[in-house]
């Protein structure tokens, strides 16, 4: 998934207009988030190569998951339940927003389930393309 994300950044750095929700600020590639004041999608190293950060990797992982789902019979509306550790909360929510805002084609939802393996305690937070999808121009 890291390689897939790095390939995406390589393409984006050649054509930044291809995804206007991202912008380069110094060496940081930032995502324009509605949920967080700052989301770092990646960084550019001294050689000029894009290094993906966790939110972008999560976004790419969801992109792949939804592509697999679309290839299956379930074509109308699709939901991914994603189980995570509590400690990963912000990076997976950031990645979920990055996917739904940038890539979702609509009628998609991600339910982030934060799970404590020791206590079996969990909290689930739903996010949908309807809520986080692209803004009308």
């Amino acid at each position: 998934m890291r390689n897939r994300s790095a390939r995406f950044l390589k393409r984006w750095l050649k054509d930044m207009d291809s995804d206007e929700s991202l912008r380069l600020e110094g060496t940081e590639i930032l995502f324009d988030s509605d949920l967080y004041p700052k989301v770092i999608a990646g960084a550019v190293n001294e050689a000029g190569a894009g290094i993906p950060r966790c939110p972008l990797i999560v976004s790419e992982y969801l992109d792949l998951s939804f592509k697999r789902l679309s290839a299956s019979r379930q074509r109308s509306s699709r939901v991914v339940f994603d189980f995570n550790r509590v400690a990963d909360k912000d990076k997976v929510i950031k990645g979920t927003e990055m996917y739904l805002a940038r890539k979702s084609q609509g009628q998609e939802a991600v339910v982030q389930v934060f799970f404590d393996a020791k206590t079996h305690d969990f909290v689930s937070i739903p996010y949908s393309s309807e809520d986080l999808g692209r803004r009308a121009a």
Partner: protein
Amino acid sequence: MIYLDYQATTPLDDEVADLVDSAGRRFWANPSSPHMAGMRSQEAIEGARRKMVRLLGCRPRELFFTSGATEANNWAISMVKASQEHHIITTAIEHKSMLDACRAFQRGGGDLTVLPVDNKGFVNPTEVKRAIKPTTRLVSVMAANNEIGSVQPITDIASVTGEAGAPLHSDATQAIGYLIEDITQYPADLVSFSSHKLYGPKGIGALYISDKFQTSNKGVPSLLHGGGQEGGKRPGTQNLPAIVGFAKALELSRAALTDERSRVKQLKSMFLDLLLSHHPDIMTNSPQELCLPNCLNIRIPGLDAGELMSAVPHVAISAGSACNSNDQQPSHVLMAIGLSAAEARSSLRIGFGRTTTPEETRDAALAISAAVSLMKAS
């Protein structure tokens, strides 16, 4: 006590109060904390937001929680940088929180136009058109007035602002419970409103900022500085119990919207008819049409409203906006519709609401009527 001051505030609904209480006990952890308890709090807030956006027809990222409508109004005005190159238009009958924020903008060097209203409190869209300049950055017109109830021709005003490319803000604090259902169909780019006018808790309100406004302005500047709450646009640990209560209050108000609208309108007519049958010289400052269904402002020639209120201590009515009640000045709204200071001082605001019964309405009208007779005789 007979409570007839629903423009000032509404009593907290019992069901909402229970929910606020239980939310405060269950979800006490900081919603921003990275642990299970914190996430439960976060999900309680987001669940409330989802409920509200479903009811209002907007998207979660368009709804920002604030401490109330005053903050929301101040936030909207703060989005325009105070300078002579930036112009704001507002009206003479806005709530104090809007007018004072606009005056602060003007003191900071901003260009401000305060439009007059007619004798029933209506803004003329042609006046708005005439006032717009190439430098106009915001037009703010309230949805419905909190003292006399006039409902502004927002659709016509929005046509004018839309043509000029000037964003429109509207303080819908009084209107949200009766007149506005789908907020995306209400033609303003920014809308302020508050929970405590909807039988919800105090200390919580919201600013709706349309996607269109956010896109054309490349983001939203925040009023406060601090943490990352509300996407960093409204920092500060969220008032979770109040947010949960706000959502419930909105839900309850929507469930009975149509029935309640006609019920309070009937109570208002009944009250006025009864009062006029005893004192035909009483005049209405509120418009007959295009008025909030639950708001009535009357003028009793020759009587002091304060003295009349003292004569009927068991009836909770008001001489104007609660937010202005310590000003010792005649109401700016009544002065703006052309009343003299003496006429403004003889005016009363009566507000009807969910708990008002026909019996209470009759008793209050009779009590006020008797007090007027006594005062006139003395």
